[in-house]
């Protein structure tokens, strides 16, 4: 995906993303490679991380089940 650092405002890099630079995102400089400066063209790639998604789902499911088993205060009745 095409991206250009339009300018630096303090600790933020204003990055214009897309063929026409239609999406503007303010990146903290700490999120960008060292030495990034105004006018740099960036390479941005986004991938779906299916492994991490699956791992997160399992972790959250485990937590939810743990909480359900702890029971409740008696205020809510079926």
């Amino acid at each position, binding site marked *: 995906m095409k991206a250009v650092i339009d300018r630096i405002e303090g600790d933020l890099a204003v990055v214009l993303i897309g063929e026409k630079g239609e999406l503007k995102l303010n990146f903290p400089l700490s999120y960008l490679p060292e030495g990034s400066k105004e006018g740099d063209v960036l390479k941005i790639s986004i991938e779906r991380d299916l492994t991490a998604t699956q791992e997160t789902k399992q*972790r959250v499911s485990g*937590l*939810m089940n743990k909480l359900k088993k702890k029971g409740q205060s008696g205020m*809510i009745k*079926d």
Partner: protein
Amino acid sequence: MNKSIFGRVLLAALIIAILTSAVLASENLTVYFWDVGQGDSELIQFNNKNVLIDASTEDMGPRVECYLNGIGVSSLDLLVATHPHSDHIGGLLTVLNDFPIRQVLDSGQEHTSQTFENYLNLIDQKNIPFEVAKRGQTIDLDPALDIEVLSPPATHFTDDALNQNSIVLKVTYENVSFLFMGDGGTAAETNLLSSGYNLDADILKVGHHGSSSASSAEFLRAVTPSVSVIEVWEGNEYGHPTARTLTALQNTGSAIYRTDRDGSIMVTTDGEGITVAKVQSRCSNLVSSNTISSTASVPATASSTISASSDGPFVASSKSDKYHYPTCSAAKRIKSSNLITFASSAEARAAGYSPCSICHPP
């Protein structure tokens, strides 16, 4: 005065004070619809008990906490997380950290966001009793209040699942009902219509920030609210609320309140009438600012009479934390650019102001 008579007078005064506060506390149900940017947060207050529904985004947590502190809430009897989206549960992380909470009611839906995982972890660490919402449950907060879970149904929705499976609550106090829709949309509404529930309500927390995915005309005809409240931020990029939703609400004859224009809204009822007030609060300056004051009254409907609360007006400075009679010497020194007006002492106190020690307002 001899000691025993003095003692009896003191005791009588004490009993009267206790009885008065008990009667006052048990007579009014108050619901706050907080101004929390692009997200939802509502507080139900009755007989010294507090139920918080959602707390908007994570950056709004401190603001929700400020609102609660401002009206003297130090613990919650129930925390309701309508669904796992960050504009509803983000601010709950602050609330879970800082307030004792007796019980959490969750939608039971799982989400992969770090915000949701942090929320579950906090509930686990604090050992807060956790219950999953399902249609037909009742919440035993106070014998005078009926609270029922209308949604999600036993079989969850699969499209737009997190929103559609939002917890929907109906709260009824004598002749006045509130319907809290979360982000439930037309699928949830259609299901509710066919469920046989009486959906008629006086006050509607409009579903999904007034988007067109909710508030079907058929559903609104069944609810026929007198007052509709939309929780929304003026700068939102999603087009909320849509013109279609606003028109649909107007067609039911409902008065419409919006947190983007009106700030926080306080609805008070004694079980018969409804009072709607705009809450002036310094908390709204946390994260972003929004300053509107004054009380508005709403056209009365057959089922409820609505009046403005009446012991005011009182004034205050946005730079101070005291409220005054307009005639107070201290009030006259307030610059007009800082001047805030409250319709009642309750409104002033709800906004975090305390009585001036010169003019002693109620």
